[in-house]
């Protein structure tokens, strides 16, 4: 599968994080977490080539667009990317259920880590509720996003028939 397609799809999501949707203050964490989720999914799905460097760059772009500290979303995207790779190592890439379960555990960990990191960055305890709400929403959205990515993957495979048999990079 083309390496461009996963990157472009995540890039589209990154741009969407910066668009003024008019979401309430509690829902501000959802869209960046969807970006992280997409990185995880693309890394977990076999035959897809989203490199960790691309994951970090997309995370950095999310940081720049959001105006937050540089490296925060890049770090979370990198952790998700690594987790996606290990989910393949442990053979959890062949079923929706295990992937969903892994994402649930991962996003819980990411939410705690993100909250601690943000609190450490600002040297004060930041409000945990938007992060928890975003994490819960991302768990609920996981099947939708995964199926969307699978649809993109199948479209990409149709355009590049030989790419579906490539090994991962």
């Amino acid at each position, binding site marked *: 599968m083309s390496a461009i397609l996963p990157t472009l799809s995540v890039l589209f999501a990154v741009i969407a994080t910066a668009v003024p949707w008019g979401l309430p203050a509690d829902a501000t964490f959802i869209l960046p977490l969807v970006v992280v989720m997409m990185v995880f999914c693309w890394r977990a799905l*076999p*035959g897809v080539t989203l490199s960790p460097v691309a994951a970090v760059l997309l995370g950095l772009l999310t940081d*720049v*667009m959001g105006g*937050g500290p*540089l490296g925060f979303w*890049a770090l979370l995207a990198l952790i998700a990317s690594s987790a996606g790779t290990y989910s393949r190592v442990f053979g959890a*890439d062949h079923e929706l259920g295990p992937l969903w379960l892994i994402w649930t555990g991962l996003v819980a960990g990411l939410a705690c880590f993100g909250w601690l990191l943000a609190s450490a960055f600002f040297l004060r305890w930041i409000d945990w509720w938007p992060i928890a709400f975003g994490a819960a929403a991302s768990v609920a959205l996981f099947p939708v996003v995964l199926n969307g990515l699978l649809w993109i993957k199948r479209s990409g495979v149709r355009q590049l*028939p030989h790419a579906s048999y490539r090994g991962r990079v």
Partner: protein
Amino acid sequence: MRGERSPFRRRPSRWRGPVELLSFALYFLCAVLLVLSRIGHGLLIDARDDFVDLSAPLLEAASTPVILARHGLQRVRSYAGAFAEIDRLKAENEELKQWEWRAKSLERKVDHLRSLLNAVDEPALHYATGSVIADARGPFLRSALINLGRDNGVRIGYAVINGDGLVGRTVDAGASVARVLLLNDLNSRIPVLVGPAGVRALASGDNSAELRLDFLPDGAQLYPGDEVYTSGSDGVMPRGLRVGVVKGTSGAYKVKPHAELSSLDAVSVLFFDTPALTATDPPSLADPRALSATPEATPAAQPAPAAQPAPRPTAANEPNPLDSALKQAVGVSSGAVSTDEAQAVQQ
């Protein structure tokens, strides 16, 4: 096709040294960036500003359909409740007519008293109106990117308002875009006056929808519904800008901002220059396009003063249907607004 049977095909696992090394390097890079970001490294800030400037047209293009859709949705909602809204507006109009008469009367009285006291006129405030092209989302920041920048005379520290009241202040200014730190951001601190007694306090953001009221004097008598407005004691914000109303009970007072901070659209930047702002300007102000250059130094788009009958329309000062609403927020009658008038509206 073999891959079509299951989208989640199992693949043999393998460990690769270079990949692990690359991952470690990337983790290290992220940590370094976080540290540099924490200490506010100038290179990082400049690079970010340049990138945001470059990506502004893309963000604006991406935001346009979303903003149009939001407007469409609002229109559909308003159609749904049109009759009730008309009745409400009629009643409100009747009430406002009374207020208009009273405001004019007070204005005359204030003018008379000022002339008796030989009071010095306060400088008028100029403003430029733009729109929000991007939102910041995350645990750190509540900010918005607007399509006004140094070319339009915007500099760091200017107050930003919309039709409802104060929205925030500018914290970054690129050539064509500026970042507005919203009132409810974790780093936002606005000195305010509360209620008719003018109790001094600090309205602090905590990333939630409402603001905290810190440093209230002991025994301060506040009541839910009391108006909160800027005190101007920071030397950055003009005095008398509407912020919100008091909510909650004693010991846990909150401020509900008048402006709907989660769905901002058109906003105006008030060009309010004070010694506090000019003192913090970088020494490279000789360059008129430098960050935080004064509006007067930028020839591209100077804000139009009230006395000029027909200001040259630019992106910054072209007639905007929301202008009348914005004027309401600070009590203005033209392209320039006096802080006196803003205070008179408050009273």
